[in-house]
């Protein structure tokens, strides 16, 4: 590692590693393009305005869309966020700011284990605590199931982001005599906001595409959204059922819907970030 040739070799090695990093990124994006492209090719015949403005039609009839299921997905994701964001964020704050080392590692443990529970099991749990006692499938139970999946992701990403806010900021604020809770909400959380938003968006992306927990909770609805205590449809549920059905019509709709779902999540993601970045200028 000494002398000119040593430095040259190190330079070369550095360049190689950096190129590899670029290739890794390209590979990941390539996979996304391959999958999305495949859904697009298979579903293109159904991608039209009707697809998002029309209710679904039985097999054998031309046309039909997924309006109710798109709507249902929005409601379920909203419900889940309503429950999971406070719980997840507060847990993240507790872990990053207040918890002693023992409590923190215990709670972190719980979060990591909760994140590893197969989603179908979460569905079974929500079924046991909500559907069975209420004697009815409901949007509410599905929202709870999705929230349980979301909480650990939000909590852990929030914690990681909060931790990365430099101590100097916190200390500066403390030195000014500001209360800790104001510091947390006013200085530390804003300082970590991009990380937190990333975490939330990851969690939203994850639950927006979840099928398994919905089978035993949301059930699905052939007649649109009928309130929070009634069965409700959702895009992934419909994708799942259509994709595995015998009919090419439905299979195509499943591919189209998958494409649409990704675009929807992408859209939410872009809007949230655009708004937050425009505000910071």
């Amino acid at each position, binding site marked *: 590692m000494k002398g000119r040739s040593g430095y040259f070799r190190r330079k070369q090695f550095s360049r190689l590693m950096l190129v590899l990093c670029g290739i890794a990124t390209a590979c990941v994006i390539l996979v996304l393009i391959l999958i999305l492209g495949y859904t697009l090719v298979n579903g293109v015949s159904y991608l039209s305005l009707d697809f998002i403005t029309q209710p679904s039609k039985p097999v054998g009839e031309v046309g039909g869309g997924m309006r109710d299921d798109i709507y249902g997905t929005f409601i379920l994701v909203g419900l889940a966020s309503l429950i999971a964001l406070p719980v997840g964020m507060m847990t993240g704050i507790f872990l990053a700011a207040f918890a002693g080392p023992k409590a923190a590692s215990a709670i972190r443990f719980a979060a990591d284990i909760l994140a590893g529970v197969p989603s179908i099991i979460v569905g079974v749990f929500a079924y046991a605590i909500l559907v069975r006692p209420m004697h009815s499938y409901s949007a509410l139970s599905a929202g709870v199931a999705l929230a349980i999946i979301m909480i650990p992701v939000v909590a852990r990403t929030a914690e990681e982001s909060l931790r990365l806010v430099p101590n100097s900021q916190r200390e500066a604020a403390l*030195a000014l005599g500001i209360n800790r809770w104001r510091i947390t909400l006013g200085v530390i959380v804003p300082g970590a906001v991009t990380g937190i938003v990333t975490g939330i968006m990851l969690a939203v992306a994850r639950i927006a595409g979840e099928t*398994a927990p919905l089978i035993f909770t949301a059930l699905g609805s052939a007649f649109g959204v009928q309130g929070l205590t009634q069965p409700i449809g959702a895009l992934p549920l419909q994708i799942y059922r259509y994709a595995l059905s015998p009919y090419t019509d439905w299979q195509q709709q499943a591919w189209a819907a998958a494409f649409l779902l990704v675009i929807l999540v992408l859209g939410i993601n872009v809007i949230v970030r655009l708004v937050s970045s425009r505000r910071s200028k």
Partner: protein
Amino acid sequence: MNQCKPDRPAAEVAGDIVSAARARIGDAIFTRLTLFFSILMVTILIALLIVLGIDAWPAIQKFGLSFITSVEWDPVNEVFGALPAIYGTLLSSAIGLIIAVPISLGSAIFLSELAPQWMRRPCSFLIEMLAAIPSVIIGLWGLYVMVPFIRNPIEIWLGSNLGFLPLFSGPPFGVGFLSAGIILAIMVIPIITAVSREAIVAVPLTQREAMLALGATRWEMIARAVLPYCRSGLVGGVVLGLGRALGETMAVTMVIGNAYTLSPSLFSPGATIASKVASEFNEASGDLYIGSLIELALVLFAITLLVNIIARLLVWRTVSVRSTGE
């Protein structure tokens, strides 16, 4: 976290006693609130365990410890064992992480350190979008597009050149542990990449500058100053990704071949705990059968627990090695 009690200017203190008390109440309420929600999350986990424990009780009672060591899974005669599923879960997740971690880290480094500013955001978006594709769609894509490619050329080439290793023996069906691992890698990459990227971005500039000033190359700067600094964030990302890999169902079920066997070959069809539960739960009937499927889920809990403990120990070890070495 070190608490520092600031010395406040005397002039302010006089009129501030009331508001200080209020502030302390505010702090107390806020801290309790965060504690409350943390406990709520732990409670959910415990409730989940209890509910599952009750449902799994018939199987726990009947099979005891043999559930974990038995390779049988016979719904007709109601004999159930979890070993092949445990093996499949660990093997497929390990393959998934071996592929996903370097790729994710590479992408995270590229997107936070190397890429031109204009492409960082869009590319990060795109990678995160991979997480939004429903599992069944990735599974079907895997089955129809990826698996044929893995059988021919990859498995056929590996089989004819390295077939003497047990790892690459057996007929190349395409579906199997290898395909499952690759699919899992695809599913966890967005998670690990996103979390790692955030962690890397948050590393202070001074860290990098100091390293560069010492004459380090860019890679050395990244490998020795940046990555060690945000190690806990990186591990957090990997652990989150691992959680997803262990519990992933539909996509894996589509490409793993669902045979209930213990085979050393990566080409062999197998099963994971989650795939077994997901594929049989809907149609299962009878307390013992359903109980066994739920017990499988509990075994997965235990595995996640174990893996997490190991991950923690590894982190602690590297931390202590570093601190004594320096």
